[in-house]
């Protein structure tokens, strides 16, 4: 009986073709080959990794020169995740950090592993741990996580303007 109908499900779905655009292609091809490639803004000369759609958002211009950055970097800030949530794949507590790769001017987000969460600190030097080469795709997921290099911490001045 119609009176019994309390709700209906009307799922929607559309397929999309997404093109990353030439500005991001070098970044993705780089990852596919185990390289971290950013791009430099021709106006303000900042190096973006990832190259954000190939645009410098400060200047509103297309990014130009390709610049290899990292692979090592410095933790500028971080967060210890203690909260369990649906779909969590990593054992808590774990650390999500913003890492300023050497040669880049914006931080990127990644996981920190192979050290106690309590030992992670601003200025800590880290390096990537890659998946097996046979599994590489054009994605930042090729890097499993970052781990401490054991180098002395970076000076505060190095990352002060990225906080």
């Amino acid at each position, binding site marked *: 009986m119609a009176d019994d109908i309390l709700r209906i499900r009307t799922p929607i779905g*559309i397929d*999309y073709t*997404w*093109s990353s655009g*030439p500005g991001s292609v070098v970044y993705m091809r780089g990852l596919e080959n185990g390289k971290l490639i950013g791009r430099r803004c021709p106006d303000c000369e900042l190096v973006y990794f990832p190259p954000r759609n*190939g645009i410098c*958002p*400060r200047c*509103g211009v297309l990014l130009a020169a390709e610049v290899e950055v990292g692979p090592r970097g410095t933790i500028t800030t971080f967060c210890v995740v203690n909260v369990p949530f649906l779909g969590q794949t990593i054992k808590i507590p774990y650390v999500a950090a913003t890492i300023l790769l050497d040669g880049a001017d914006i931080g990127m987000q990644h996981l920190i592993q192979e050290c106690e969460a309590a030992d992670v600190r601003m200025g800590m030097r880290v390096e990537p741990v890659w998946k097996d080469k046979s599994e590489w795709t054009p994605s930042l997921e090729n890097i499993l996580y970052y781990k401490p290099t054991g180098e002395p911490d970076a000076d505060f001045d190095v990352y002060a303007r990225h906080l």
Partner: protein
Amino acid sequence: MRDVAIVAYIEGQNTSATTLSPVEMIVPVVHEVLKRANVQRSDIDFWCHGSCDYMTGQPFSFVSAVDALGAWPPIMESHVEMDGAWALYEAWVKIQTGEANTALVFGNGKSSAGDMNRALTLQLDPYVVAPLWPGFRSLEAMGARAAIDAGTVTERQMADVVSRSLRDAADNPNVLAYGYRDADELLDEPMTANPLRAHDCPAMADGVAAIIITTADRALEMCDRPAWIRGIDHRIDFQNLGLRDLSRSNSAALASFHAGVTKDKVDVAELHATYSHHEIILAQSMGIDRSTTRMMPSGGALVANPLMAAGLARFGQAARQIFKGNADRAVAHAAQGACLQQNIVAVLEGN
């Protein structure tokens, strides 16, 4: 009211499927329109953008478009989930309030990113119409059928509109439909969505349009012959298709009346008629005499339809006719929604 004029218009290259990201498409067009008005980014005190997340398949996709503007130092900007023509309206209101003097308005869309016939269906009532996935072309065919049955539109008139649009397209390097054919040849083609034939439907495109509007004290510095916005209005019909007479557009008629279209002669009209019968319905509803007004000299949205930019492009193309001195009084129009549900109309004058 403050006098406001369109002083510059640029459209990006319309393509059938670009590999650029939406932001990469916008950047050069923004640069060009600034150059055209001979102004710097810092001269723009309001930015307004029209686009549609359902086209990109990405929520808040418009936020990344701000990257294209160079938002440092901070800028005042806004976005409408509509064709860029509605962004122009918001910018015009902003200038009327005195909060801004010069605005850059743009609209962009990548029609090739998905099945737009399906994506546009999501504009419909989400409970009882959209779940049927009627497809936009079918709805427009229904509108055309209603108009033909009401005797306000004929298939011959529709073919004439297409034929003229294809002829005008030959003079416009930025179109995606080519090859002049006369009405008889067009009527020999089979119907693809009765009563529509393939050529009655728009040539879908990926594209960008950008316009700069400003106040009287600066307009003449930016443009030799600004296109003054003498009237502008937008109106909306019911969303429920069953409550509407699809053979006409009440909201287009109201918007046209309030914009003052019929107060004087109309030299040129750029109507956002994405299907051939739209032009006839719109002209009738808006009080435009198609025998004395030059209709869509650009070829119109039939020959290049970059969604979310095509309406703003009508404003730009109408303004161009004023810039060039081809017209003293032009009507610009944009539509959104199914069967001409939402309409914005402006009267542009050279003096």
